[in-house]
């Protein structure tokens, strides 16, 4: 009996010791995004991407010898649920969280992290944002604890209008966007920037429709057609872009589409179905067929292992830059990492240099315009098994994407 107790105690001690040493070795990143419900297809894609990136870092010895682990936390794209998950992450000793889907969620998290860090000095948490693009997050709501790797929607519009400036065939533009903070900011920025850069362009329509509630866009297409537009600008994502394009093709609407998110889940399939060959443009920080060899090698390896295309080149930049910052700071302490990230210059996945602006923690990087359609011979990557892929149309250099900020950051 005594032997048994001794053995059990010993075993228990060993497991506990093992457990503790493991926790010290692992650098956990809380991934807070939808893993169930309507946004799950997107959230799962993001999770796979981050897990792949963590594996990549771990294969090269981790970050300062710490193994990186992604902890998935399902927020159902709900701000309230996200805060519960963030608290759960903090209770589990996590100091880094990353999130992307939904600016409403991002605003809640940014606020939560800032308050938590003020109240708990020494236990700070950093929030890495890889896809929530509401400009407010780096302007009036900006926080020292928030870093954004995706271009804000104002930056994307700046880049897009800089491209449209040089396309004389654009004469009549129709704006159609989802009726919430992001869609409204796309619409306002498009109006403001087009008026400044192309005063001759006429805005013939400006539509806001409810978010993710429309099953048939034919009425909207009829309206676009009646307006005589030659180009449509939209920030729609998810099914709102897929169904919009589908209805357009059904009605035989011949316009060019300037979109933020036509490449998201289901978008390529819809474009292929509609046969809008090289008429749908997208604005991103990287494209599979960009021609830059390291990026194309990465895409190939990524697709081979994860069986999806790389939606988030910015996630690659985020994780690699995190590692670089930790190495620069020689610490994984969040405050030191944050200070190292400020103003840091970084060679992005798709080539060219980006930098993390100190004033508002917005990352600036080269932005690409690409069109979706039949592939050229040197373009190996298609999307969603359609046989069509993204073809580079224009590159907007980092300097051309810089927009002013109103952020007045409070530093610790």
């Amino acid at each position, binding site marked *: 009996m005594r032997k048994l107790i001794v053995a059990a105690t010993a075993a228990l001690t060993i497991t506990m010791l093992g457990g503790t040493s493991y926790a010290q070795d692992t650098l956990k990143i809380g991934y807070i995004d939808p893993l169930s419900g309507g946004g799950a297809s997107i959230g799962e894609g993001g999770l796979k991407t981050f897990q792949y990136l963590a594996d990549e870092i771990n294969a090269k010895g981790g970050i300062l010898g710490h193994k990186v682990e992604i902890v998935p936390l399902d927020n159902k794209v709900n701000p309230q649920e996200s805060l519960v998950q963030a608290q759960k992450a903090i209770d589990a000793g996590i100091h880094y969280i990353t999130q992307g889907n939904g600016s409403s969620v991002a605003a809640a998290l940014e606020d939560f992290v800032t308050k938590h860090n003020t109240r708990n000095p020494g236990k700070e948490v950093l929030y890495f944002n890889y896809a929530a693009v509401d400009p407010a997050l780096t302007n009036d709501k900006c926080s020292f604890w928030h870093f954004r790797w995706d271009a804000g929607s104002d930056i994307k519009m700046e880049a897009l209008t800089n491209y449209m400036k040089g396309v004389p065939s654009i004469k009549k533009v129709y704006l159609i966007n989802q009726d919430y903070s992001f869609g409204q900011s796309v619409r306002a920025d498009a109006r403001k920037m087009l008026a400044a850069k192309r005063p001759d362009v006429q805005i013939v329509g400006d539509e806001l429709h409810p978010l993710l509630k429309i099953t048939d866009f034919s*009425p909207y297409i009829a309206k676009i057609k009646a307006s005589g537009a030659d180009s449509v600008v939209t920030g729609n994502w998810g099914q709102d872009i897929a169904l919009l394009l589908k209805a357009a093709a*059904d009605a*035989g609407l011949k316009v060019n589409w300037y979109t933020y998110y036509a490449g998201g889940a289901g978008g390529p399939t819809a474009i292929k179905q509609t046969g809008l060959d090289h008429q749908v443009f997208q604005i991103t920080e990287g494209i599979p067929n960009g021609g830059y060899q390291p990026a194309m090698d990465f895409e190939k390896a990524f697709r081979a292992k994860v069986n999806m295309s790389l939606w988030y080149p910015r996630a690659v930049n985020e994780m690699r830059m995190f590692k670089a910052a930790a190495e620069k700071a020689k610490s994984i302490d969040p405050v030191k990492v944050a200070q190292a990230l400020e103003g840091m210059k970084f060679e992005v996945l798709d080539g060219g240099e980006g930098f993390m602006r100190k004033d508002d923690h917005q990352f600036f990087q080269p932005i690409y315009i690409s069109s979706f359609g039949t592939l050229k011979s040197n373009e190996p990557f298609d999307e969603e098994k359609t046989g069509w892929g993204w073809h580079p149309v224009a590159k907007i250099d980092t300097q051309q994407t810089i927009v002013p900020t109103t952020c007045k950051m409070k530093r610790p």
Partner: protein
Amino acid sequence: MLELIVISTLNGVLFGMLLFLLSSGLTVIFSMMGVLNFAHASFYMLGAFFGYQLTRWIGFWPALVIAPLLVGAIGMAVERYGLRNTHKHGHVAELLLTFGLAFAIEEIVSMIWGKSPMDYRVPQALDFSAFTIFSTNYPAYKMFMLAVSVLIFIALLIVLKRTRVGLIVQAALTHPSMVAHLGHNVGRVFMLVFGVGCALAGVAGVIAGPALVTQSDMAGLLGPILFVVIVFGGLGSLPGAFIASLVIGLVQTFAVALNGSLASLFGPLDPSFNATVLADIWNVTIAQIAPILPYVLLVLILIFRPMGLMGARET
């Protein structure tokens, strides 16, 4: 303007017919059995996914026949082993059963097919534009959807009102023991009715799948509006559902085409609310609120005519 009116009317009718295609099965089940089937949209989703899978294997046309049969068979199983047992506990139990079923089906579908949209395409034979009006194309596939909806409407009306089968089914609802005494198997009648209702949802799924997005959340997207259609038309009334579908389709389409807002109604007399909270309500256009109009109609009809347009009894 004429162009917009003609095209909006066409779009409205097309969308309305799609709604009818979806709600016909729901109405049949409700009018014959008194069961409000919350899982109806899920059966529609099953139809779309079966249709997609079978189209892959054996082509669209066989899928159009087999997929609804499969969905109908599942529906019959649900009735036989689920609803029949809960029936004696009353309608609330039935409602809860179908409610739970809706979630279960959604999870099962996303487990099998994943959460991404399927590449479910319009069959080659129907992939052309049927006609062009004001330089807007109307795809043949949409005409096909329209034709199927109308056919189903007529066929259902004839079966229910003009045949012996319809008589027995209707009698089984109000006088089940009498019908049983006359030598009919009431249980089987109910099972068949539920199966047919689900099969209709399956047909809608196979047909609507390529036109909309075939995805594991498609049930949740269309579910609510189906209830608007059948409540507005009058619970259990087939012609009511037909008219309600058309009305809702047209209202929604025309609302989108309109740009007016409360502010523009007053024109130059507009008392500017720009900086206040009221600005949001004041400046919202009819187009912006188009998709919620059906729900406004639902509330209004329940207040002023609770039995719906053509319903025989109070909802």
